[in-house]
């Protein structure tokens, strides 16, 4: 889990799967919105971490990784959040494209709300939460945990505040999408090999992630 060093469990998995098939993945780091636009405009050959709700043109792979999106809040606020609808009266900041990715129930909960924001840099989500500017942050559990533990925050921010995690979202299975069908076939084949030889689990474990079973409902 190395920010700014072109590495990460998911990226390593995609890289190794494609390398088995004779391809070198050259990543173009952009915001989620920009990612979809660049792919659609033909700037790149494919896009990763794509959700089916994003409806990009092209050939979707089989699912290769699962995100666990959660809502987090300051524990001291003692919010009783047990389902998505409980977010309706909260001030929320989420990652870009969350309104599409998290499905129709979440879309309804935040629809027309001026207290809902999406930001490209998730570091800003944590700052707003600690500062009390928002009630809830929505994002992947592992990514948010990384930011909470590893980011450098302004001194005046009380980062010692406990955080409550609300598991209200189903696991989100992710896909890569390529314009060229043969790349998608190659990717799926590479992932199958990594899963079969144990390398897939090894990469996740090396980065400290739990392996989420593929047949998890979502």
């Amino acid at each position, binding site marked *: *889990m190395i920010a700014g060093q072109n590495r990460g469990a998911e990226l390593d998995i995609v890289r190794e799967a494609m390398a088995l*098939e004779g391809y070198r993945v050259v990543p*173009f780091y952009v*915001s989620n919105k920009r*990612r979809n636009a660049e792919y659609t405009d033909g700037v790149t050959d494919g896009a990763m971490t794509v959700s089916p709700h994003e409806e990009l043109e092209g050939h979707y792979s089989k699912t290769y990784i699962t*995100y666990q999106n959660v809502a987090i809040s300051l524990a001291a606020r003692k919010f009783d959040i047990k389902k998505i609808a409980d977010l309706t009266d909260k001030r929320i900041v989420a990652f870009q494209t969350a309104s599409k990715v998290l499905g129709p129930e979440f879309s309804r909960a935040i629809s027309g709300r001026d207290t809902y924001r999406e930001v490209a840099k998730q570091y800003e989500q944590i700052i707003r939460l600690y500062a009390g500017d928002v009630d809830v942050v929505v994002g992947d559990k592992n990514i948010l945990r990384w930011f909470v533990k590893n980011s450098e925050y302004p001194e005046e921010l009380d980062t010692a505040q406990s955080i409550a995690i609300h598991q209200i979202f189903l696991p989100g299975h992710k896909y890569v999408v390529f314009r060229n069908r043969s790349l998608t076939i190659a990717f799926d084949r590479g992932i199958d090999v990594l899963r079969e030889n144990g390398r897939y689990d090894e990469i996740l474990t090396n980065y400290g992630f739990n392996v989420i079973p593929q047949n998890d409902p979502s």
Partner: protein
Amino acid sequence: MIRKQFVERQLYLKTNPLLIPLAFRLAVERFCLALLTFSALSILFDVQETSAQSGPKSSQITEENLKDIHVSVGFSVPLM
């Protein structure tokens, strides 16, 4: 004109009965040739598809001959 040619042809075949089996044989031969060509093409495309499905052999892949593909990646992915 066409009818005239047809009638003439029928007349020609009637007067030369040995030509009828010859014409039939020619038709069968052409049909078999077409079938053979179709089968050969099918096998060829099937082999190509199978080859695409099975992918390159790992011994053929080296760091130097990897082909670059450009992939759009969200900012947070390196953290995942």
